């Protein structure tokens, strides 16, 4: 009951901050576009014609319906993995740090609820908001393309799971920085800094070739394995969309490990804090 109340409170706050609705309307706009504005004629599994805003587009003579859906799903997944996740980070930082507002945190702490539960309630509430929007959009696109084109590729749903997983790890870092500094702005800056560092470290092989000292190479390797692997996650997402096998799941489990450590640290520091 307590956990559910905490999750619902987070959702209510997100709705009041218009975050939820902003995501919902943006997702709905995309769905409406695919539903009413884009028309596709499929003949014998091949795209015969495609119109957008009544303008008939040129379609490559031998594009299959399967390929069209794959491209559309790929484009949307990459958009959600990059822009969508960025927007979600902006929105979530404020929701997490709001817990620590003076005059509010004392009230929650005075209730017969453990500190871990309080913070986890916020964390999962945040995750619920992002997951609801993400699956609303991807499920909608999956259904629309399934009905319009007759191709039911589930890959976009799997790709959403990858995006949600990466966001859940980013959210643990937001939570950790919010516990430390109680500031949404600092959480946003720190999280984007982590993404940038992760992007640089993705070029590990090249960096190791360029660095002359053994120590520097060890530092790069350690950081690469210790920090979340956002670009590598993007690569896995691409393979999932293409329906190709994933060579290595190391970026996923090592990123998950980072998330577990960040979440554990955040909860431990919160349990020791004085308010």
């Amino acid at each position, binding site marked *: *009951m*307590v956990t*559910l*109340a*905490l999750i*619902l*409170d987070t959702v*209510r*706050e997100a*709705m*009041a*901050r218009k975050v939820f609705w902003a995501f919902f309307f943006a997702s709905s706009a995309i769905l409406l576009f695919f539903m009413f504005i884009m028309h596709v004629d499929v003949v014998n599994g091949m795209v015969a014609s495609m119109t957008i805003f009544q303008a008939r587009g040129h379609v490559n003579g031998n594009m299959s319906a399967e390929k069209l859906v794959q491209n559309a799903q790929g484009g949307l997944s990459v958009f959600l993995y990059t822009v969508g996740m960025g927007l979600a980070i902006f929105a979530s930082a404020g929701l997490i740090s709001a817990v620590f*507002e*003076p*005059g*509010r*945190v*004392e*009230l*929650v*702490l*005075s*209730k*017969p*609820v*453990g500190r871990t539960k309080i913070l986890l309630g916020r964390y999962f509430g945040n995750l619920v908001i992002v997951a609801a929007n993400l699956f609303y959009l991807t499920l909608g696109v999956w259904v629309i393309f399934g009905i319009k084109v007759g191709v039911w590729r589930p890959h976009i749903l799997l790709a959403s799971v990858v995006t949600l997983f990466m966001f859940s790890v980013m959210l643990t870092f937001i939570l950790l920085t919010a516990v430390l500094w109680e500031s949404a702005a600092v959480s946003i800056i720190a999280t984007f800094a982590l993404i940038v560092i992760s992007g640089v470290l993705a070029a590990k092989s090249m960096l190791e070739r360029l660095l002359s000292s053994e120590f520097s190479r060890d530092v790069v390797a350690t950081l690469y394995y210790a920090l979340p692997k956002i670009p590598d996650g993007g690569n896995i997402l691409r393979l999932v969309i293409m329906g190709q096998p994933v060579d290595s799941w190391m970026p996923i489990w090592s990123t998950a490990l980072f998330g577990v450590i960040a979440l554990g640290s955040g909860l431990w520091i919160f349990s*020791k804090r*004085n*308010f």
Partner: protein
Amino acid sequence: MSYAIETEGLVKVYKQRWTKREMRAVDGISLKVEPGATFGLLGPNGAGKTTFVKMLLACSHPTSGRAMVFGKDSWIPESRRSIGYLPENHRFPTYLTGAGMLDFYGALSGVDAATRKVRIPELLDMVGLDRWGTTRLGKYSKGMLQRVGLAQALIHEPKLLVLDEPSDGVDPVGRKQIRDILHRLEEKGVTIFLNSHLLQEVELFCRDVAIIRKGKVALEGTVKDLTSEGGYRVDVEHVSDNLAAELKSRAKGVVSNNGTLQFLYNTREEANKAFDTVRAANCEVTAMTKASSTLEEVFIRTVEQK
């Protein structure tokens, strides 16, 4: 017997992160509050009152010592089930309605949905906000927020009510309303722990008080004991210097107030002798009263002690 509140040598030391300088906000407070008592915690700004309350509610960790609520360590979440708390400078979520806020904090306090459904209208009615339940808290005045805050503290029918400046921002009518509610709770046996700088309010409501100074309990007792000085005051006007000197020689204190000399004697006999001396000198006694102090006077004397 388990006390409603019992602290043993409670200490809170804040260390500055870089300079490592220490500040003892609470310095060994041992306090016992009996169940059903109305207790006022007083002290000047920075005396350690709020830190004490925060340790009681597990918002802050004691450096040493411990705090118990009805025999349970306050750090255990379960111990807080019996506490209703209204903080000073609270910030209720403005996106919630009055009823929504009560529902949320009721759920956190372990009240089931069916009970909340019954309790919320009752509480809103009790604090005079029955027509405001569906209005967002962002539209409430400060006085209304205090009242709905009090309702929030009562949602789970606590045995101990900890109130930090409950009348802050409330108009006199609202203040009386809050006092009446607290009196009704007192009659039901609820322990009320009041942290307030409004001494008159504490004097009107509380039976027991403790005055904290520099993190330590400087004075503790019943309001009645602390405000009765045990003496008699004789007020005279237009007396000669010789007579004044004679009266002063037997008094334990004298105060000059707008031309009136107020002599304080330990016993009624001494006061009567002074009365006779004044009458024998053909002067008039303007008043003779049993001396007592207001809580404010006791408070100021206590906090100004070197």
